[in-house]
């Protein structure tokens, strides 16, 4: 098993009597993309800010690359790149100047190649105030990578981006993963988490209620697999329960069934079609999505939830 580069043990953060983060523990191994998911106010940003050294935890221990974020800020900045959820730069600064500035403070030559990589070089005369949301996001990502960090924290990096901007950003994150950069990603976007993250933790009211790969978390839910089927002569319509497949509804010439054991239910449906001398024209099997599982957890099923998986190994 690869070594863990981020370690969070029993993290607690209180604001007065309000407990924003309540005993959160997780580990992220080198080269992994680890997602933090949760509704607004769940505590994602607070966890990240404690890791970034911006906030002082009320309890627990944190480590990034063997460095304590609270007591060793200087070393932390060498190994950690951060894109904040909301931040800004002076209105009159140019991307090239921002890169020069950040690299100068890291004692290294400016990384203009990062501006080019994120499509900003041609706009190097543009002022920050004139840049679009997507350009600003890409600039902040480029600045976060200026010191060649081993770990990058991205706090809702695609919020406010259009579809193209989001796709470009996802490609940039995949490139980072390919170069073995460890990424801790907080997001609201389930599709983003599902497509990018090796593992995710779902946080609700300051606690982790599920942790594991997106597939593992999805699989543990109560939601059933959906089978949509259309045959040439509509032999299964009007619909009825067939074996373990529970009929849900008919939409035009399609019948829709729900089941727990998808393989068995599909076999039973196909057997019924075959016995009727009919043939299949279209068959779709849809597993419950991460979003459905997330909503299931949000809607109250999380109080007695066990952690889905604690192993560090991504699938």
């Amino acid at each position, binding site marked *: 098993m690869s070594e863990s580069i981020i370690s969070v043990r029993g993290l607690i953060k209180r604001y007065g009597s309000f407990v924003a983060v309540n005993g959160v523990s997780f580990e992220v191994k080198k080269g992994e993309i680890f997602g933090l998911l949760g509704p607004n106010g769940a505590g994602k940003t607070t966890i990240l800010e404690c890791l970034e050294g911006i906030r002082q935890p009320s309890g627990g221990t944190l480590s990034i690359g063997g460095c304590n974020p609270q007591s060793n800020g200087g070393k932390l900045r060498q190994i950690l790149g951060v894109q904040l959820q909301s931040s800004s730069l002076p209105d*009159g600064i140019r991307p090239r100047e921002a890169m020069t500035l950040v690299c100068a403070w890291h004692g290294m030559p400016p990384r203009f190649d990062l501006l080019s990589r994120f499509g900003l070089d041609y706009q190097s005369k543009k002022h920050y105030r004139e840049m679009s949301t997507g350009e600003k996001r890409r600039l902040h990502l480029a600045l976060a990578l200026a010191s060649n960090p081993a770990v990058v924290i991205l706090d809702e990096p695609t919020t406010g981006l259009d579809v193209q901007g989001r796709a470009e950003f996802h490609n940039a994150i995949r490139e980072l993963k390919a170069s073995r950069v460890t990424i801790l990603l907080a997001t609201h976007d389930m599709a983003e988490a599902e497509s990018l993250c090796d593992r995710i933790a779902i946080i609700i009211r300051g606690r982790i209620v599920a942790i594991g790969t997106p597939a593992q978390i999805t699989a543990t839910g109560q939601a059933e697999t959906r089978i949509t089927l259309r045959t040439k002569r509509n032999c299964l319509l009007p619909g009825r329960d067939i074996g373990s497949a529970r009929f849900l509804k008919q939409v035009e010439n399609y019948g829709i069934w729900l089941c727990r054991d998808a393989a068995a239910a599909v076999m039973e449906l196909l057997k019924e079609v075959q016995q009727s001398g009919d043939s299949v024209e279209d068959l779709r099997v849809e597993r419950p999505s991460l979003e459905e599982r997330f909503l299931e957890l949000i809607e109250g099923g999380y109080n007695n939830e066990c952690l889905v998986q604690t192993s560090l190994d991504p699938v």
Partner: protein
Amino acid sequence: MSALFKHLWIQFKIDIRERGTLMTYYLVPLVFYFVMGAVFSSINPLARQTLPATMPIFAVTMGAVLGLPVPIVKMREFGVLRAYHVCGIPEGAVLFIQSISAFFHLLVVSIIIFVTAPVFFEASYPKSFFAYFLSLLILLFVSIALGVLIGMVARNQSIALMLSQSIFLPTVLLSGIMFPTSMLPQPLRMLGRILPATYIMQSFSGLGFGLPTDINAAFSLLIAAGIGVAAVIFIVIKLKALEKSL
């Protein structure tokens, strides 16, 4: 050091690009100076004589106390300091560089006034250049320190503007740069003595131009410097608090 110089150069350029900064650092003080030089000094000969003292006080107070706080508040409000922090740039360095950049801008304006006042308006040259420039340096130090302090304590831009005006307007009216403090009623004269500009005006007049003063000129300079040092101490305390609450 290289990082500091690069940062300072970039900050200097950012300041030049900001319309608001240009207005408060250069345009308004210089326009006011030319109006004062052309009109007011012809009415009051004493005003013409001390133009190289009064107008830098006006320009520096305006630039530092009105111009500097709002950008600092904006940096806090909009997360610029947070963005710098996570990129490894200390908040203290950001404020220091902002202050040094303001220092150079306001020094340039002051030198423009110093050089042009005798040429355009027949203003007097100081009797002691050393004392004049020492007073100017203390003026820059104390004004910038107050500007940064307002930027650090104000919760938002409106409060910053209110605090700035509460220093700037009395400075213009009560410190002796528009008319001698001896012409003011006693309560206003006493009120003027809480302003650093009053003491700077005394030291410019007494030490720089050899004119009679209400307060000992050297002592005035020390008081002004003391106010600046006190402001810096408060800034450091606020900075420590800010680092914990980013």
